[in-house]
């Protein structure tokens, strides 16, 4: 992987990795830092000679490891706290404030889901990753991932009747 290929990967996947981090830490600035760190670490791994077969899946794997490290060091912002302080989704423009309300509803759905369901669901439906890529990123079998997605969707439907 050359530096140009790496930058192309950034152009293609930066938003998805940011989103992935955002749905885990629920804070825009931290998600942005985690996204940046994900790409920096990935480049570092490559420089040290790590063989990267599927860059996209590898990026998610690195992001997940960073998120786990992050969650060990900081307490995740609670839903109650977010409801009191409002969601950190960017500037205060009118458009963003409308988006904030919608995002709040979305966050409520997503955050109440168990992380083992939340991760594969977001990766499949929001990030459009294949089962194989999700399995690789999460270190699980494809079968396990498929089962989790199925159960997760079922829980959402039961709880929120969507």
């Amino acid at each position: 992987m050359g530096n140009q290929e790496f930058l192309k990967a950034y152009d293609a996947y930066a938003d998805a990795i940011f989103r992935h981090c955002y749905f885990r830490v629920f804070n825009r600035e931290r998600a942005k830092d985690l996204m940046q760190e994900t790409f920096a670490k990935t480049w570092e791994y490559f420089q040290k000679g790590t063989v990267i077969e599927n860059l996209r899946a590898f990026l998610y794997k690195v992001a997940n490891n960073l998120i786990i490290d992050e969650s060990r060091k900081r307490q995740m912002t609670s839903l109650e706290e977010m409801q009191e302080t409002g969601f950190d989704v960017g500037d205060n423009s009118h458009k963003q404030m409308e988006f904030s309300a919608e995002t709040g509803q979305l966050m409520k759905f997503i955050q109440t889901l168990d992380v083992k369901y939340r991760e594969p669901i977001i990766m499949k439906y929001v990030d459009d990753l294949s089962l194989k890529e999700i399995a690789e990123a999460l270190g699980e079998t494809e079968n396990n991932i498929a089962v989790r997605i199925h159960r997760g969707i079922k829980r959402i439907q039961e709880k929120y009747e969507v």
Partner: protein
Amino acid sequence: MKFEELVQKAKKISLEPREKAVVRHWLEHLARPVANSLVTTTHFQSIFSRFKPVPILASIMLMSILSGGISFAAENSLPGDLLYPVKVQVNENVVGLFSFTEDSKANWEARRVERRLEEAVGLAFRGNLDSGRQEILANNFEKQIIKLESRIVKMESEAKFARATEISNRLETAIAIREKIAAKFESSADAEMPTISFSLESAATPKIPPKSTIKRVSPERATKLTQEIKPEQFQSAAEGIQKAATAKISEVKNFLTKFKDRLANETREQARIRLASADQTFLEGDAKLKSKDYKMAFDLFRQAHRVAQEAKLILQAEKEYKIQIQFNSNHETDGKEQAKLWPSVRHEKVELNRNLNKND
């Protein structure tokens, strides 16, 4: 709300184009090819420019060491990186072995101090200036300063005042900026900034490299030097530092022209102001030289050289790391400048944002 609607809303969450561009810029720097590194190219060019007198066997040895992938890869490493010891203990020592004259040895040792400075800026930019890396950096910085100091003292004892002053200027300017970097981290810690780092490991308050290292070299060294020079030695000293100042001012002007598109307007303006000041001081020195006031000429050329050297480091910090170093406009020239680095990497991001806006 249907599940599909939820998914569509989730997909709308993305980075702002500006945010994405800022991080991309940072990654471009991180992933730049080794051969494009300013440090690497200028440095290796200088090695090969000295290649002629080297015996064939030694040339082959040097070529084989430098052409090794590890050695080249190590050139871009920073304290704490796997290849950093190769950079400092192999690459740099090899170059030192092929510096035959006192002059070239002094140049190389001054360059090594500047390399440690660049590493500090690099780590600050990366947000990886944790306590372990700082310790490595502080130790290496101290070692280089000790070596360079003894070289300067030797030059002075041999009445090579112009060269001693030139090298001393480089050392003092590097130290002044190094202090500002340390101060930056102090102020970040004091202000309880959320983080100075993109790295989770370095979220703890960083330790500042021991200041004893920095204080060992007096900022007034060059001023004191003028008191040590005998009256009959001032003419050659003034003419020597005049040449050095001419070369330095020219080097910085070329740098500014070559990289103007990659520099923020404020940085270009700061450099221009300092270059104008260096030019003016140089002209005054020239007038004093013609009127045979060699002592004053020496002092003025020394100041012109120093101001140009500061401009160079300001430009390099901006070009390489997008870190802006601010000096007061009414600058003086004996280490009294109040340089200021942005108080945190977060602020650097903001500043970089502004720069990108201006470049639109």
